[in-house]
């Protein structure tokens, strides 16, 4: 398949990329790993006149420890994240979920920034960013902005990014002591996209009760979202099996479930509670 024609730029600095973005405006699309955008271009669902490739900007690819958490450059690949001991230690659910994206070849190209910016309803990392309380740093000419993951995902394939902005860094706060994390997904067998996916970050007190919980879900509705009903049911509970089941039964509250060839809305509504319970149980186990 052949895409429409486009002009291609490969800037080597964020400043140069932003200047190109300002110059070309709505005609331009940013190219990260390309594994969402290029397939869209091949089917001509996307026909940008200008592609600005961020792949040659080496300063956008890094994983650093920051205040006990992490600062990750937007062009860092899934493979780099999944294989990073720093991520495995400071935000284990991010490494776990990144290692379950698609397949090895796609993980070698796809990036955390591309995944979050694309906001695919079946993408894995939006749910993880929500569960970890990530802060997303954007750059535009002469300015920076920080957007909470809670405010970033607006709708289907739509984020809070402005047309002149580049997502440049993902900051993940330190996990409190006693916190366990886990990701559980029902993957499409061919693509490994999440039919439903649940990221759980659960803090367990010394008395075994739940001190705090953040649950991010993907695949269920038009965008990744927090399962706030599940979170509030968990906090203060003793996290035994019946408490986890009861809390997980709220994971689909308020969601307008996706219906497609892979799963009916009714099936997704069932799956989301099952996978929420699995993710929570695994997170609690990992907390100890």
């Amino acid at each position, binding site marked *: 398949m*052949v895409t429409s024609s486009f002009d291609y730029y490969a800037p080597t600095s964020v400043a140069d990329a932003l200047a190109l973005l300002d110059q070309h405006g709505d005609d331009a699309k940013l190219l990260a790993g390309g594994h969402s955008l290029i397939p869209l271009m091949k089917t001509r669902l996307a026909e940008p006149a200008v592609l600005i*490739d961020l792949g040659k900007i080496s300063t956008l690819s890094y994983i650093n420890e920051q205040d006990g958490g992490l600062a990750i450059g937007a062009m860092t690949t899934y493979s780099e994240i999944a294989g990073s001991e720093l991520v495995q230690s400071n935000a284990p659910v991010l490494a776990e979920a990144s290692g379950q994206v698609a397949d090895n070849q796609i993980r070698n190209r796809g990036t955390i920034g591309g995944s979050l910016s694309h906001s695919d309803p079946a993408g894995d990392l939006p749910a993880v960013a929500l569960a970890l309380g990530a802060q997303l740093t954007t750059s535009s000419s002469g300015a920076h902005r920080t957007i909470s993951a809670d405010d970033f995902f607006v709708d289907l394939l739509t984020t809070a990014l402005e047309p002149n902005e580049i997502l440049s860094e993902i900051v993940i706060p330190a996990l409190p002591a006693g916190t366990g994390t886990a990701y559980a997904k029902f993957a499409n067998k061919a693509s490994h996209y999440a039919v439903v996916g649940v990221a759980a970050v659960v803090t367990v007190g010394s008395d075994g009760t739940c001190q705090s919980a953040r649950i991010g879900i993907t695949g269920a509705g038009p965008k990744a979202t927090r399962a706030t009903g599940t979170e509030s049911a968990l906090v203060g509970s003793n996290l035994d099996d019946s408490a986890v089941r009861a809390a997980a039964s709220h994971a689909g509250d308020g969601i307008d479930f996706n219906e497609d060839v892979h799963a009916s809305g009714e099936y997704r509504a069932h799956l989301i509670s099952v996978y929420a319970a699995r993710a929570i149980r695994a997170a609690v186990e990992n907390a100890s």
Partner: protein
Amino acid sequence: MAQEITLTVNGATRTNQVEPRLLLADYLRSVLDLTGTHVGCDTSNCGACTVSLNGDAVKSCTVFAVQADGADVTTLEGLASDDGTLHPIQEGFWEKHGLQCGFCTPGMIMSSLDLLSKNPNPTEAEIREGLSGNLCRCTGYHNIVLAVQFAAEKMNSGS
């Protein structure tokens, strides 16, 4: 508007004028005549087009050639020695009959190269996961796993 790219392919420096929309897979096949890289699904699912880009296996149907400007690319044609001695992974596919129709084989071999370069002693489960981005419509997976195990043993013994 064509742009000039210069990259290393199987050890040789290549410079060409390409349209930005030319896919790396089509560049390798149509411009460089390296038809060992196959295009199967053309939708980043099947993995037949897998090549090594700076040491990482990638699906070349989902990379533009211009993105590979300055990169080091290895295709199936770059694996055997100049005297025709097969790479241990190719030998494994030969010895263990790791192919039926052979269409997926170049991609399977290039993915196996990525796997074994990063995990020289994979378990069977790790081999199957590592090759999960490559589809064999003959469903010849069993012998493909044996081929990779053969190659791992041979590469580790250094012979």
